[in-house]
Structures are given as C-alpha cells and as structure tokens.
C-alpha cells in the first residue's frame, strides 16, 4: 500500500501529480488517460458540496481552464484542469451526489478523465511524491489554511 502523508490532517497521496496552486490532482491511467480531481485540502476549504458540474465529454480544455464547477453553501468556483486535453469521461455520480468529493476526493470523487494533448511538458510542471507534500505544506502554513475535517466514511 502507498503511504498517504498528511498535512494538518489533509491527506496527500504520494502517487498523484498535484497542481498545488489550483488544489487539483492528476492520476495517470494505463490507457493513457488522466483522471483529474480536487484535493482533500480543496474539499475541506469548500465545505459540504451541494453541486458539482463537470464539463461534457468531448470538450477540449487547455491547462488552467475549468473542467467543471463546484459549489457549497459558502463557496463556488472552478475546478481548473491541470493538463490540456479532451474530456473523455465525466463522473456521473456527481450529478446526484456531489458530496462524494468530500468523502472520497481521490477515488470515487474524481471529476473528469482527460486524454492529454501535451502530457510530457505539462506533467513536468506538476509536483508528485514528497516534493508535492512539501509544497502543499508550505502553502497550507503560509496561508494558515484550516485543518482538514473528514466526514464519516472518508477514504483517501
């Protein structure tokens, strides 16, 4: 099993690729697609989510453009794509259960799957492993972000 480091209670799996600034992660799949989601830090900042709306399959995104929006009772914002590419799948569960992101930000709460168009150069801009954890720790401490609180049934 992969260890999952925590910073202020926020879980940061070592095997993912992170855009720390945008609070997103990428997992590379065997078929060449990339799964994208929000980090534990992000779901904690947003609070219990009411709606999560991914863009549609077939939409082409540039890195930094939203692959969807999420909203809670106190926050609404974009989920910015960590990679450029075409959306090849969206998490249909989100339409009826946005809080799956709160419960399982790295597994069942994924947002979209992309077929990356500039993978090599863009993946290199993301952080993974301990450097990602260190960068996130610096951000959390610098901005004094609140400690993660996990709902019952949370899984990382």
């Amino acid at each position, binding site marked *: 099993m992969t260890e999952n480091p925590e910073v202020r209670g926020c879980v940061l799996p070592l095997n993912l690729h992170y855009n720390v600034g945008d609070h997103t992660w990428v997992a590379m799949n065997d078929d060449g697609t990339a799964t994208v989601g929000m980090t534990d830090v992000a779901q904690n900042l947003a609070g219990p989510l009411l709606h999560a709306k991914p863009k549609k399959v077939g*939409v082409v995104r540039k890195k930094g453009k*939203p692959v969807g*929006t999420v*909203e809670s009772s*106190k*926050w*609404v*914002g*974009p989920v910015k794509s960590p990679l450029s590419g075409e959306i090849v799948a969206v998490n249909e569960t989100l339409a009826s259960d946005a809080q799956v992101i709160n419960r399982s930000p790295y597994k069942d709460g994924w947002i979209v799957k992309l077929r990356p168009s500039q993978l090599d150069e863009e993946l290199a801009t993301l952080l993974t492993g301990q450097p990602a954890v260190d960068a996130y720790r610096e951000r959390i401490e610098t901005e004094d972000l609140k400690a993660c609180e996990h709902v019952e049934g949370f899984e990382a």
Partner: protein
Amino acid sequence: MSEDPEGKKILVIQTHGVETPNRTYSPLFYAMAAAAMEMEVMVWFTMDGTNQLKKGAAEKVQLDSSSDVTLKTMLEQAQEAEVELRVCQQSLALFDMTMDDVIDGVEILGATSIIDLALEADHVMYF
C-alpha cells in the same frame, strides 16, 4: 441543457447596501458562479449598493453567524475570481463619497457607460 455559457457576458446590478446584509450575499455569489463558468462578469454597484464599497464598511457586515465570513470576504473572493467591480459615479456623489473612499480594484463608470454595458451583456441580473 442550455448551450455552453463560456464567454457570455453577465451584468449584475446591485442596488442594496450594508444596511440590508441579506441582500448583499447572493448577487456576489451568482457573480462568482458565472465567473467559475468562464463568463465575463461585472457587478455594478449603484444607489444604496454603493456603500458596500466604502473602505471599512464591508468588514463590519457579518454574513454568516457560524463563520467569520463578512461582506469583505465576498468582495475579495469575487475580485479573486476576476469579477469586475464597478461603481456608479452619480451614486458616489449621493453618499458624499469620492474614489478615495472606495476599496481598491473598483473602477468608476457613469450612467451612459452602464447603459452601453447593459446593451452589450448577454444577460442582466438586477438586485
């Protein structure tokens, strides 16, 4: 589903100010939602809405008793989301305010400009 909203222009007109906190939250929230959907969003503060933008005013308006979220928090989040904030020149005078009294990041526009912007917008939301 409606067509993709990206790139559309939304103009939010806010006429309510710090004396009615419950009427200040939603317009900014909608503006941020539209910005998150990649729309071009502008909030136009006029009439009583002008006083939201006075330095030192918004931080005194508590919007959520269970947290420290104030109207200032919302205005800052809106600006971070690239929502453009504009204030009515004529309303400023109504409150004996000048641009020196207005928080940073807000631009001033006159009445004819807002009419032009309303005509150019894909949709106007009026509060």
